[in-house]
């Protein structure tokens, strides 16, 4: 297959499939189209892996014109949205994009040059990693959505199905993301960036409730700030380099950053684009759009949080890391670390399952952004591993949240009490997913461990990392505790789920283990080259099946002449996991006669099969326990003022330094 076709499949096939599902309003056919698209995308991403690094610019100039037209169409649509919703922020940030862009292209006469920037696409290992994450995990989520949306509309008793529209945006999202991570031409990158913003808005607002529309509009205007910053960065690069489009490709910016040919003038545009990425990655103080996004049907959340949208943000930050000035890098690291810390603490007080997941995503994105800011071989390795593992684990957890929601019709953690009894299969997968977020043998913890070993160069970030890690454990453990709490009634039935649910769930479940155990070969064969696209690769971190970090990986240990910085025995830890949790589950089982009721000071009313107790006047009362949410200390009301103040202050300091240096 030629590269041209591979790109067409990755970017245009989802669009065509989207149009097909929009036109053919039939449940089974829609399912078939989505499944076929999913399979083709997955196969295509493997072709990309085998193809390797390359560049591509379409021969026909028509594509540049089409993209320009669509750019304006989208921006005009944003203006329309702003006017019709009377949301002045949406309107304002649409205008701040469209006016400068139009002036630049037509007023300053840049339009013909802008349409001829090449290369349009650069395929390197980092974008291949991203394409695989998007195509594989994104596709699985789309497959999950087939049945989910059917159940969703059954439950809401909609008269006219809105699924065709939903799948149009959902499937197209994958194409836009593929385009985004492959694009090198900044104008094209900007276009795909806007398409993801548009898809995101449409999907969040899908249910058309007041809340959904408001939250969709919030996602739209916040990401439009990012779009504005990107337009500003592009114009700055154009005008400071003598009205030339030479530096309007990512590869040239990075090249200039590496050899310092642009000097201090590069700093502002890089900082602006980094800012764009951080908004999309929901870094504080812009976390609210992602928190609001949970009103959407759960597959949307799964897609936004795991393989698309927010990953575009961290992708851009990592991509630009070679062009970071050291001071900018430190500021990015501190901003990211602060988000990691604040989001982890705020997650403790959340009572809604999806909101905990959202805060956890924000926290992990903060960690990834911080790693990009630290910008060493070790930290970039951690960042890319975290992107992969976070996509798998968080994708799984959101799909679990959706499955739970469709069994108990609630998102509240308190309603999930004793889920282990009502839906043992879903609970089992959910618990594994949660453990994979913070338990030692799994990939997420490996990434966090690597990040912590690399973070000492920015001690403030290191301290925030540590505090955040402790908070992370607490909020997962609290939620796990609610799922586990049961009264052992005798006999329970394993629930049956549609294949559309179970196939994605089990695939991601298998992915957690396969990639978790195989992390060292995965790193060596797959991730290391991607790290090499960002920083110079000098060291081998993988040895056999284990991760060993040599002393030369950090400056401090290199100076002290240390041989080994740290070691992570992967498979021995999986054996520990098996002995600690899997084997006891398989081998030990309690006989019914070994079960006893809990201690209630002698007031329990009955045996094991009841959870009632005798209240006043021997009235039977149901025993109810609640979770503990640290409402006083960790709630949003108590902390948000401070969080916003500090986060905004950090960005102000960052841009203050950048502007100071570049002037």
């Amino acid at each position: 297959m030629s590269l041209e076709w591979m790109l067409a499949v990755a970017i245009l096939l989802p669009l065509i499939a989207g149009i097909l599902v929009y036109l053919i309003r039939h449940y089974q056919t829609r399912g078939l189209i989505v499944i076929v698209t999913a399979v083709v995308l997955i196969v295509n991403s493997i072709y990309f892996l085998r193809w390797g690094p390359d560049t591509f610019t379409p021969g026909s100039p028509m594509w540049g014109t089409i993209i320009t037209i669509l750019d304006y169409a989208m921006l005009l649509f944003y203006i329309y949205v702003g006017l019709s919703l009377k949301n002045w922020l949406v309107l304002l940030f649409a205008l701040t994009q469209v006016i400068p862009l139009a002036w630049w292209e037509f007023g300053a006469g840049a339009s013909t040059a802008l349409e001829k920037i090449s290369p349009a696409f650069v395929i390197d290992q980092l974008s291949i990693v991203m394409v695989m994450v998007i195509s594989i995990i994104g596709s699985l989520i789309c497959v999950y959505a087939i049945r989910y949306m059917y159940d969703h509309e059954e439950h809401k008793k909609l008269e006219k199905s809105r699924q065709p529209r939903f799948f149009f945006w959902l499937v197209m999202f994958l194409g836009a993301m593929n385009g985004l991570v492959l694009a090198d031409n900044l104008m094209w990158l900007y276009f795909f960036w806007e398409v993801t913003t548009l898809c995101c808005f449409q999907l969040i607002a899908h249910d058309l409730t007041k809340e959904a529309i408001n939250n969709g509009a919030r996602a739209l205007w916040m990401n439009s700030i990012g779009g504005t910053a990107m337009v500003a960065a592009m114009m700055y690069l154009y005008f400071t380099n003598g009205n030339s489009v030479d530096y309007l490709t990512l590869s040239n910016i990075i090249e200039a950053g590496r050899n310092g040919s642009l000097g201090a003038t590069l700093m502002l545009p890089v900082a602006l684009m980094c800012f764009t990425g951080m908004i999309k990655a929901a870094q504080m103080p812009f976390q609210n759009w992602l928190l609001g996004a949970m009103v959407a049907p759960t597959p949307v959340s799964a897609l936004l949080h795991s393989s698309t949208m927010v990953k575009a943000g961290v992708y851009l930050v990592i991509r630009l890391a070679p062009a970071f000035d050291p001071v900018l890098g430190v500021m990015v690291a501190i901003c990211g670390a602060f988000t990691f810390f604040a989001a982890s603490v705020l997650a403790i007080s959340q009572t809604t399952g999806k909101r905990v997941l959202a805060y956890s995503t924000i926290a992990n994105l903060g960690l990834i952004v911080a790693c990009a800011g630290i910008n060493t071989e070790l930290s970039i390795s951690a960042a890319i591993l975290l992107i992969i593992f976070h996509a798998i684990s968080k994708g799984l957890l959101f799909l679990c949240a959706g499955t739970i929601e469709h069994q108990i019709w609630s998102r509240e953690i308190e309603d999930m009490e004793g889920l282990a009894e009502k839906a043992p299969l879903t609970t089992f997968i959910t618990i594994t997913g949660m453990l994979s977020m913070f338990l030692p043998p799994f990939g997420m913890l490996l990434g966090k461990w690597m990040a912590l070993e690399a973070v000492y160069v920015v001690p403030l970030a290191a301290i925030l990392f540590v505090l955040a890690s402790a908070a992370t454990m607490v909020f997962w453990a609290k939620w796990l505790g609610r799922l586990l709490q049961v009264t052992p009634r005798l006999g329970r039935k394993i629930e049956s789920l549609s294949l559309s649910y179970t196939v994605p769930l089990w695939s991601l479940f298998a992915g957690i283990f396969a990639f978790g155990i195989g992390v060292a070969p995965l790193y060596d064969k797959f991730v290391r080259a991607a790290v090499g696209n960002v920083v110079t690769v000098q060291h081998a971190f993988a040895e056999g099946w284990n991760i060993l970090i040599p002393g030369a990986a950090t400056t401090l240990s290199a100076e002290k002449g240390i041989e080994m910085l740290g070691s992570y025995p992967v498979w021995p830890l999986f054996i520990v996991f098996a002995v600690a949790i899997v084997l006891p589950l398989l081998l030990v089982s309690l006989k019914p006669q070994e079960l006893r009721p809990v201690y209630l000071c002698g007031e329990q009313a009955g045996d094991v099969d009841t959870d009632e107790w005798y209240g006043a006047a021997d009235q039977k009362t149901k025993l109810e326990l609640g979770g503990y949410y640290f409402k006083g200390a960790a709630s949003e009301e108590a902390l948000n003022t401070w969080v916003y103040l500090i986060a905004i202050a950090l960005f102000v300091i960052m841009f203050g330094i950048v502007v100071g240096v570049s002037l």
Partner: protein
Amino acid sequence: MNPVWIVIIAIVVAPFIGGLLAGIDRKVTARLQGRYGPPLLQPFYDFFKLLGKSKIATSRTQYVWIISYLVFMVTCLVFLVLQLDLLLLVFLLGFAGVSFALAGFSTKSPYSHFGANRELLQILSYEPILLLAALGVYAQVGSFNISEIFKQQTPLLTSLWPIFIALLVVLTIKMRKSPFDIATSHHGHQELVKGIMTEISGPYYALVTLTEWYELVLVLGIISLFWANPLWVGILIAFAAFILELFVDNINARMTGGWMVRFCWAIAIVFCVLNILYLYFINMKGVL
């Protein structure tokens, strides 16, 4: 020596040391309270008696988390004796603590939940200190591997004494001693309604006791790293810290969970942070 033998010896010997220390604990505490106290080997008698009791539980999954608590704690000890990564050890120790809390959560008992929630407060208090300690060790040694600590000529205590003091707080929390014995008791100092232990009995209780012995040895082992060359000084320091805890336990009243978190975050963590920042600037000077 062959690492396999080191691991086997550590796994076998640690509970004996832990049990003996528990015996000393009970004896000293009794004397401090003007009682005669049980024989030194009483913890072992209790342990074997518990093992012989019939298996009884209030939940079908609780035992999984109890076994996980034990296995992860033993793994931590193995990491220590094989001189592996200290940071990873701390993460494993953190998960061992989470396992125990999950054991508490997996039964529908109010007392057990009390204990589990308080256990989480403890994790929130001590986990950052331990992680910062690992970071401090890195700042001084330049590596996270424990084996590198043993190659150091100057003991860590000389440059990391603020972190050492913070670790003593962790020791108090881990030993569940006053003023931080929040998770262990509900009705005063009695054994029947004892946090998570309320719903744990017989052999499972024995497993938890065993794990606590491992935990004690582990934390004392980490403390002894602060004087790793020669190690016997470190062991003496750890033993002295242990005896100190017994006195601290008996002259303090139990404080609330919120107070514990505030104390750890406002004082102990600040000690660690200042220590690390100081070392960072010392290291920077070396670079410049």
